[in-house]
């Protein structure tokens, strides 16, 4: 018999989601798959691919653009006192408020620590779409409400709620929040700028 290796396989029906020697990595994929599944099937929430932190009863949405380094940004904001609200998705309700969803400082779901905090739905005050470029300085441009809604639409998870709900919800968010877009350097150099933006 040939030498054997213990593979762990993860399927969704006949859809192979993961195949790895490490069972931990397979469970990570399962966890992410379940979160994605909830996002696609929720009727009363609109899910946007983004991380969310809370700052003084307001929410900051960090759009999850590839190579944005969102994790570093979240960590930087949390070190300044922001509270993590979500790692993968901004869960928006029909009033345009964001709800906490599966977030911890290290990104792993943790019900026990979340249970000790109050995670009430928060109005969105700031949306940040930052692309990491080594050596860049954070000089963002401010998007108008229409541009904000347009930009966010591209990060929406297709869900059961449908297009009308998605557009209405994003309109409510866009009319109240400020969206900043631009290149950034190291997270530590821009986190204070982001929080100062909220305080002004």
């Amino acid at each position, binding site marked *: *018999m*040939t030498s*054997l*290796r*213990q*593979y*762990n*396989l*993860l*399927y*969704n*029906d*006949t*859809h*192979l*989601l993961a195949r790895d020697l490490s*069972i931990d990595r*397979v*469970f990570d994929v*399962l*966890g992410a798959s*379940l*979160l994605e*599944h*909830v996002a*696609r*099937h*929720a*009727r*009363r*929430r609109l899910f946007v691919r983004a991380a969310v932190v809370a700052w003084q009863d307001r929410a900051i949405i960090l759009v999850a653009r590839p190579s944005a380094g969102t994790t570093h940004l979240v960590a930087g904001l949390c070190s300044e006192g922001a509270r993590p609200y979500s790692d993968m998705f901004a*869960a928006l309700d029909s009033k345009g408020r964001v*709800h906490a*969803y*599966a977030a911890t400082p290290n990104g792993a*779901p*943790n*019900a026990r620590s*979340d*249970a000790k905090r109050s995670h009430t739905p928060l109005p969105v005050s700031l949306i940040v779409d930052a692309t990491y470029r080594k050596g860049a300085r954070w000089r963002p441009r401010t998007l*108008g*409400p*229409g*541009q904000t*809604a*347009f930009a966010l*639409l*591209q990060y*929406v*998870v*297709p869900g*059961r709620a*449908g*297009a009308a709900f*998605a*557009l209405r919800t*994003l*309109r409510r968010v*866009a*009319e109240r929040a400020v969206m900043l877009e631009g290149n950034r350097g190291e997270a530590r150099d821009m986190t204070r700028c982001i929080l100062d933006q909220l305080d002004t």
Partner: protein
Amino acid sequence: MTPRARKQNLRVESVAGDLIVYDRARNRVHRLNPTTALVWRHCDGHTSTTDLTLLLTSELGLPADERLVWMALRQLDKAGLLIEHVQPPGEAARMSRREAIALGITGAVALLLPACDSATTPTLAGGPTLAAVDVQGDPCKSGGCVAEVVKGHCACKPKPEGCGKRKGESGDCRCFAVPGAIGCNCICAPPDDQCDPTITVIGVIAGLDELKQGTVGLYRVVGFAGNCGTCQHVRCKRMISCEWEVSDKTLARVNALPDCKAQLGAIRPGNVVLTATLTLKCTGSLLTCSASTSQAIIKTVNINV
């Protein structure tokens, strides 16, 4: 010329003067600035380009230059938001943004130059797509199998006769949707004499046909020790199934996973045959997961949302 706006398969939302238009047929989204939006709204098949020019002047204070209307109409045509293609009467009717600025359309007025941004977007409609494409809009490839779109993803239709063996291969060949690939692939299981009796297979089955009102999804995690399903003659050494529901009211998290993980992680080659069922059900505002074997409840976990 009296252009006509397309209205079918579109969802429109006004956001602070801009129009956000979602095109369901093409999975595209467009942002029309106030000028282009004004032109589009009045493309009713009766309003001429001359009338549209006067409208831009009276409503937005733009210069009375028909080329601005044609700029908007070309953008709308390119976005697929007009019923018929439009053709400006001549080169004289074309005006670039640079030419517009050279005419003195600067500052705040320049912001009103017709503008239309467009992008591809995932399907928002929630219904079946028009073609066999996945949520990114890419076609599903068959790869020797039969591809179809299931719930926005490429999936493979079962092929009872199998998908055929490649040269040098033996054993069972089946169609699988391979991650990273768009569509199906024909994957052959190793021959029986090369079966790995210690593979742990975690199957996640989304029983969406069994959804109850208000639930989001049903996941069943089944762990096998033994190469069951691919190498038929190998007997399952141990089987555990973890099953739980998640509700969109609570946006349940996968905190129950560690229990399942601990059970499955304890499986070792050569374990005594044992069958246990671990059922985790989370509903309501307070998630209560109860884990039970076939004989008795062994654990209850309360999770606050």
